[in-house]
């Protein structure tokens, strides 16, 4: 830790930057970089949402002519779903919780003045930004964006002749992913080093807020997962443009023999899902950490089972690397290994269940304040349960026979890694907005936004379970050609109408966000009466976070309603209550 403090003084001995460029564009300040990531994700989420809106419209009115776009072709629908998935998974679910809030609050919550490597931090943001531009460029090249889905299964993704969008669009998609991997790897290194080396005096690992544990474990997953995806992306690019055959065997497309020999399409799936499954946890772990934080803060009660929460997240991290085969039960892998993957997958449900029990345990006997962040945290728990409960269906190969590649899967992962994580992002926004911008967000608009989002999410995704059970397949641009699916069209209509309302509700959030920056009620330094270090400093925090001094930590992060304490919360830096407080 001594070296960490030394490093921080070295980096931050200089005064805050004065020029606009160094302060807001090429900034080394983790807070500015955090905001940059956040606004990148905000842009991305609205683009991704717009794409899903177009998809929903096309599904129920395949022949409708849209303003500017005209009638959508089946291949356009597939491009939309590819870009929707890629944008949402990479540039929203990976970017906002970790790059955005992690960057902003990890250093403050551990009592550091910045991340361990500020220049690397700036670089990871700008590489990620570049990756986003490259991805969007795919819409504008000949053939348009790729249609191979966000999973980019070879040989479809490897053969320019396999369909429109598989030419330049697919190249750009791979380059974008590879760039994103580089950014994520640099960021992961930074998070891990910062957590291990930059903690303030007294901030032992068992006194870390669960948010920090979540960011830390997420970073380790990122370090191990993105490297593999990066390598896979490069190999795919070589197959496409140099003529290698890593993923492509002898194939005949439209009667033409493509010049490949002996590659394995399953190899791509193994490499992709070796990244892809941990990625699910990269998206959800920060939300889990945050939700634990908020449930404790707003129940005015210590988190139930702090250590159990940490061990659960660690076991999710470890097991997360042993379950990728459950995406491949129907792919042609050995049925024996399918069963082994299935056992591991069912086992990973255990730590997830432990977390749910502990959230409920925290609410039990609390004194709950229904602030907007708390509403979203409770919504998160509800969605996490609902999305989680369909996991044990899909985790069993026998049940995957009828359910694989149906809307049941769509419902499952949208609820648990999609919307649950998004609820985490909303909760984090409402919770930390006062610290970041010095003002409160409007409470009424926030609550309205919650009710529309919560009910809307269920209205959109619950029917997808029914559609999937009835064998309704995903990635079908229209259901007109399969009789049994066409009879399910009323469900699709209901989903689309529910999506209209839910999407409209998100503009309330957008309005509230920008309106409150200008006109929100001024925030105090600790408006939620919370205990962690970010609430001990000024609002917004100064350039070096704590205005020239380094905090010393005396307590665990969840000391609420301590008997005998003067208030119902004890700051982590508060030395007086060492005797009564929880000694971790």
């Amino acid at each position: 830790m001594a070296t960490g403090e030394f490093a921080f003084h070295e980096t931050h001995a200089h005064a805050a930057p004065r020029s606009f460029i160094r302060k807001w564009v090429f900034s080394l300040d983790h807070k500015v970089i955090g905001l940059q990531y956040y606004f990148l994700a905000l842009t991305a989420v609205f683009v991704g949402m717009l794409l899903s809106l177009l998809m929903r419209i096309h599904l129920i009115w395949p022949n409708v002519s849209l303003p500017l776009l005209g009638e959508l072709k089946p291949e356009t629908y597939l491009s939309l779903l590819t870009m929707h998935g890629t944008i949402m998974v990479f540039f929203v679910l990976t970017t906002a919780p970790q790059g955005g809030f992690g960057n902003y609050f990890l250093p403050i919550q551990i009592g550091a003045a910045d991340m361990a490597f500020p220049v690397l931090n700036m670089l990871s943001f700008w590489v990620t930004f570049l990756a986003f531009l490259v991805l969007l460029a795919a819409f504008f090249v000949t053939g348009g964006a790729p249609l191979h889905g966000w999973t980019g299964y070879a040989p479809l993704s490897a053969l320019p002749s396999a369909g429109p969008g598989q030419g330049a669009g697919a190249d750009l998609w791979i380059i974008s992913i590879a760039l994103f991997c580089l950014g994520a790897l640099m960021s992961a290194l930074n998070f891990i080093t910062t957590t291990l080396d930059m903690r303030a005096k007294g901030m032992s690992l068992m006194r870390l807020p669960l948010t920090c544990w979540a960011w830390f474990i997420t970073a380790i997953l990122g370090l191990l997962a993105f490297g593999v995806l990066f390598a896979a992306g490069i190999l795919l690019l070589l197959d496409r443009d140099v003529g290698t055959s890593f993923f492509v065997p002898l194939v005949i497309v439209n009667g033409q023999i493509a010049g490949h020999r002996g590659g394995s399409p399953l190899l791509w799936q193994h490499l992709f899902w070796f990244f892809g499954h941990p990625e699910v946890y990269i998206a959800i772990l920060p939300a889990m950490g945050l939700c634990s934080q908020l449930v404790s803060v707003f129940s005015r009660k210590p988190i139930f089972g702090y250590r159990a929460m940490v061990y659960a997240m660690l076991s999710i991290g470890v097991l997360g690397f042993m379950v990728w085969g459950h995406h491949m039960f129907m792919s042609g892998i050995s049925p024996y290994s399918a069963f082994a993957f299935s056992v591991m997958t069912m086992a990973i449900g255990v730590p997830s269940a432990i977390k749910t029990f502990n959230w409920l345990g925290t609410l039990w006997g609390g004194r709950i304040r229904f602030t907007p962040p708390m509403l979203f945290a409770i919504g998160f728990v509800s969605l996490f349960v609902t999305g989680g409960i369909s996991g044990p269906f899909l985790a069993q190969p026998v049940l995957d026979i009828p359910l694989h590649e149906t809307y049941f899967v769509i419902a499952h992962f949208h609820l648990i890694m999609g919307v649950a994580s998004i609820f985490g992002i909303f909760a984090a926004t409402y919770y930390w907005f006062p610290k970041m911008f010095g003002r409160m967000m409007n409470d009424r608009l926030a609550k309205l936004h919650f009710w529309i989002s919560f009910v809307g999410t269920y209205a959109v995704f619950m029917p997808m379970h029914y559609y999937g059970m009835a064998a309704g397949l995903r990635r079908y641009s229209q259901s007109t050609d399969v009789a049994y699916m066409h009879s399910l069209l009323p469900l699709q209509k209901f989903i689309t109408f529910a999506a209209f309302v839910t999407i409209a509700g998100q503009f309330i959030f957008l309005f509230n966000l920008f309106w409150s920056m200008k006109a929100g009620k001024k925030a105090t330094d600790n408006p939620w009466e919370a205990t962690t270090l970010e609430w001990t400093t000024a609002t917004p925090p100064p350039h070096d976070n704590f205005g020239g001094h380094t905090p010393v930590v005396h307590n665990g992060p969840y000391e609420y309603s301590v008997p005998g304490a003067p208030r119902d919360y004890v700051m982590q830096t508060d030395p007086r209550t060492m005797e009564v407080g929880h000694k971790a």
Partner: protein
Amino acid sequence: MGLILLLVIWLITFASAYFFIAKTWWLPTGASAAAAGIDHHFAVTFVLMGIVFVAAQLILGFLAWKYREQKNSRPARYMHGNNTMEVTWTILTFILFVGLNWASEPIWGSERFRAADSRAVQVEVTGMQFQWYFRYPGPDGKFGATKPELVDPSAGGEGALGLDPNDTASKDDVVTGTMFVPVNREVEVILKAHDVIHSFFVPAMRFKQDAVPGLAIRLHFTPITTGDYEIACAELCGLGHYRMHGILKVVSEEEFGTWLAAREAEKQ
């Protein structure tokens, strides 16, 4: 606010559960020997997970309402957890999840751990953008050779598969665009793909398996009810994925024999 939360969460829970319990939408009617076992295991999982779902949501709503902050409510309990409870629910969930999995193993095994019966009808199923072709080996019981350079999708049928006319084993091969199989006899499917990955999905047969270029994947199922069943492609294969559709006709043993003989006769 606590009360509204309770009501909304409970209402959502009951409404969601209603459509499951009423089976308004459910698995398609099964028509294969394996369907009953799969459906039964689905039902078992459904009941257990349904209980967990309903219980967790109801408790969540209840706790939110019960422990809402009021002017006169008691201070929150100062407690850091309970190790006995942690151990208990960890063990219980472990037994539930992993036990469920072990219970499903024999069904999966009967589907995938054993080879097809020697009496099984062999059908080679080939997927290509955006069409399924079905090939029967004919009286000699042997599939003739195919050659990539002979493949011509526009020719359809044998031409689309690139059947080598010079191979004697290919003389009696029958290639069709609709799949015919006899009822109550095992069908061994040999799955292939020419260009990209496709997936052969027959919902009524509870049969789904990817067809992967470069691999010949052998699997089996036994239809037990005659009728026409839809085949849909279940792996994204390109712009025509949504219309890569086919029909499986399950007919009596005699009808199957007559049909196959007629195809043989057409060919000679």
